[in-house]
């Protein structure tokens, strides 16, 4: 039974990673989960300087989902290298450093600094955080900016360069095409959707920043459609993300074209969710008489002639 896959020479031991911002720096839940059984860990977003993040309230539960407005709170890349990377280096799983920035130069600086360190297997570029005023969505909703960031970062590394895309655009496939043309090795689809909730008692927004990012099972059908759309448009691997709680959810993402998946919100409920999903994915593959989990990728049977999406792809 083959579970592994590789991107640009980096091997991932299975197709289940944990999504950035939902698993800290990997050391918070050592007691609860054997992280070496994950395909990889995407770190909390790293910026050049530490960021305090947004004031409370940062979290609101919504039907089958949650809104967050953390605001990229992180210890900064220098503290990450000193305090977190030594532990991550001891792990036997792929370490993907997620980078967030408020300027193209900052993306380049953080990536270049990380390039000089041992223990990073690849980079995921966050151009899609909905909860900060500078950077974030300003880049991710502008196709030429997303393209430019990819073009500027590509020459700086020979490791996998993954661009994490936002669904808060009309056609996510245009963005996927742009970054693929500039040499990105993969895309992560999707980051959170802009959402909000209002307290009708106080008549104030529940989140301090008014709007936040929606995640959880509530967004899964939408995420699947976005992954499918991107899979029709580009040939580079896709990390499918969005409300994956179970192995069955993961199978759906692979079938519509995700090469691998990332588990996000589910980690908050069960830090071992990723490991359980990886186990379930293996069982599903075995039960269906396949030798490689990768045989599920893009294996959905559909009649393209009836696909509405294909009219504008």
């Amino acid at each position, binding site marked *: 039974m083959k579970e592994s896959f590789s991107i640009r020479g980096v091997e991932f031991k299975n197709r289940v990673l944990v999504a950035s911002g939902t698993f800290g720096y990997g050391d918070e839940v050592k007691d*609860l989960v054997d992280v070496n059984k994950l395909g990889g860990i995407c770190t909390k977003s790293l910026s050049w300087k530490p960021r*305090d993040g947004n*004031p409370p309230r940062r979290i609101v539960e919504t039907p089958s989902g949650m809104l967050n407005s953390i605001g990229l709170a992180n210890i900064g890349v220098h503290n990450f290298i000193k305090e977190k990377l030594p532990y991550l280096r001891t792990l036997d799983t792929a370490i993907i450093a997620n980078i967030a920035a408020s300027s193209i130069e900052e993306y380049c600086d953080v990536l270049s600094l990380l390039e000089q360190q041992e223990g990073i297997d690849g980079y995921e570029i966050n151009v899609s955080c909905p909860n900060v005023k500078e950077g974030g969505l300003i880049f991710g909703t502008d196709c030429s900016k997303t393209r430019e960031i990819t073009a500027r970062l590509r020459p700086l590394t020979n490791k996998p360069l993954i661009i994490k895309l936002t669904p808060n655009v009309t056609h996510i496939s245009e963005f996927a095409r742009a970054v693929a043309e500039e040499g990105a090795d993969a895309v992560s689809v999707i980051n959170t959707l802009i959402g909000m909730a209002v307290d009708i008692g106080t008549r104030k927004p529940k989140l301090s920043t008014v709007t936040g990012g929606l995640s959880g099972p509530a967004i899964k059908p939408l995420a699947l459609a976005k992954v499918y759309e991107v899979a029709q448009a580009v040939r580079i691997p896709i990390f499918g993300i969005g409300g994956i709680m179970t192995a069955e959810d993961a199978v759906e993402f692979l079938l519509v074209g995700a090469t691998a998946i990332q588990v996000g919100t589910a980690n908050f409920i069960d*830090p*071992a969710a990723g490991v359980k999903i990886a186990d379930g994915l293996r069982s599903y593959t075995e039960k269906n008489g396949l030798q490689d989990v990768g045989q599920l990728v893009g294996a959905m049977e559909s009649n393209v002639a009836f696909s509405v999406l294909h009219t504008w792809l």
Partner: protein
Amino acid sequence: MIYQRIVPVTYREETAEGLFVLRFQSKEVSESASPGQFVNIRSADACLPLLRRPFSISRRVGDEIELLFNVVGQGTRMLAAKRPGDVLDVLGPLGVPFATQGEYETALIVAGGVGVAPFPFLTEELKQRGKAIVTFLGARTANQLAAANLENVQVSTDDGSRGYHGTVVALVREYLRQRRVSRSKIFGCGPTRMLKALAEVAGETNIDCEVSLEGNMACGVGLCQGCPVERSNGKKKYALVCVEGPTFNAKDIILT
């Protein structure tokens, strides 16, 4: 050590109006718990509610953990509907315990409403440490008071239906005005506005004060970064209620 366990409910009772006592059995959680810590509970394997709910550990009874909570939404409504034999998905114990060590002789416990939850467990530990205890317990009205397993209880109600007529912090202020209290430490839990008022009283009277906070959190273990409270000192602007709290020295945080 933090455990994630599916545990059986062993006991459930409505102890005061809208206040529920629920016990579950877990030797591991029970043995590693300290006063002030909490557990994060999922009462159904479902998407509604999706997230766990945090609850103070109210008391240990053998290898069982007792919770005290009120019904505020769907999660707590489902928990209140549990019966012995039902199961819960429990993550814990979590968070930083109350700092009970120190030179003080008398502990002044101040609880507002369901904020009484962590204090039976704390009372047990303070007694073991040989501290004198005075407990101030406030509620809106008499039948919402949950005074079990506490020591030396003085009561206040907002409507005057029992004890002191006014807020629990006003009662504490009165108490401190009438006697010289030296070598004391305050432990407070309740609504943020109450804790803010309590911290002011503690500041005026120069009494060390620890408070236990609530936070809107998803995970309870530091992954989501969802439960910040503003610090009053140090380099970092925020502390996380789940892993740096829920207990804080009142001096170290800004209550708003």
